[in-house]
């Protein structure tokens, strides 16, 4: 089996077999990360394709200063967050249009069910994902990488290009925000 460094060197030469191996080896990691952030399976698949196309086009810029997986996580999270930003912009524009016209339809966001969650936790996880969606970008990224991808705080700090203590603080704030949102939710729905 070819090691990672050789694989990257071959990809730099434009080798299609190396590219295929890279996609096959890292596709679940990329897809799962993006899915956790965008919370939509169709969009996550399209974005995972975008990520690997970027990898193919930008591999010459990978200098090997960080792990390849860290570089890949960075591209995946940036792509997912960019997508969310552009979606938000479009939604705002749509809202402005609806003010001027015939729009009294309110878009209701469907519950997101992550395919990796066991059936008995499905409903609970949908509530949690809705709360995660309300987190600020950096907290959402750190939380997703740690909870869904199982990365350690050190690994998360490398992806986010920050310190371990900054990640600890991000996670603590994320937990506080989630608790607040969940408390509101359960106060409203719990009888």
């Amino acid at each position, binding site marked *: 089996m070819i090691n990672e460094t050789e694989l990257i060197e071959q990809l730099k030469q434009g080798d299609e077999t190396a590219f295929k191996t890279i996609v096959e080896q890292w596709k679940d990691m990329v897809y799962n990360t993006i899915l956790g952030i965008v919370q939509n399976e169709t969009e996550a698949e399209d974005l995972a394709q975008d990520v690997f196309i970027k990898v193919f086009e930008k591999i010459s810029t990978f200098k090997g200063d960080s792990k390849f997986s860290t570089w890949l996580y960075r591209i995946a999270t940036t792509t997912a967050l960019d997508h969310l930003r552009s979606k938000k912009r479009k939604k705002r524009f749509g809202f402005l249009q609806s003010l001027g016209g015939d729009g009294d339809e309110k878009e209701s966001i469907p519950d997101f069910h992550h395919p990796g969650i066991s059936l008995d936790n499905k409903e609970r996880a949908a509530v949690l994902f809705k709360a995660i969606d309300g987190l600020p970008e950096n907290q959402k990224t750190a939380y997703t990488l740690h909870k869904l991808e199982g990365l350690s705080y050190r690994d998360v700090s490398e992806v986010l290009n920050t310190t371990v203590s900054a990640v600890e603080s991000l996670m603590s704030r994320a937990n506080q925000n989630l*608790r607040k949102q969940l*408390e509101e939710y359960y106060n409203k729905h719990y009888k």
Partner: protein
Amino acid sequence: MTSKEKIQQEIEQTLQCLDGAKRAEANPFLFTRIKARMDRKANVWERSFSFISKPAIAVAIVVMVMAVNGWALWDNSGTIEPITTADPNVSELANEYNVVASVDNYDYENLTNE
């Protein structure tokens, strides 16, 4: 157990529900789809570049650009008249504020001597 305690319990359980979640699996045909997208992208560029680089098309484009330039030069030659007088309203305003308003005469020396 009070309702507040029950709610706290629900929150704790919800926060822990991602523990042990399995990784979502990507489409098994992801590489095929990526490849198809890359080929489509390359084809668009290839087709447009190969069309433009055909000798007949390239020569036609150059001739067309030269013709448009030639026509523009011929059309404009002799039609541009130099402006020799300023707008009476502007002159009036200029006189009022003691400013030289002529567009073809920048007589700075006289202006400063006045």
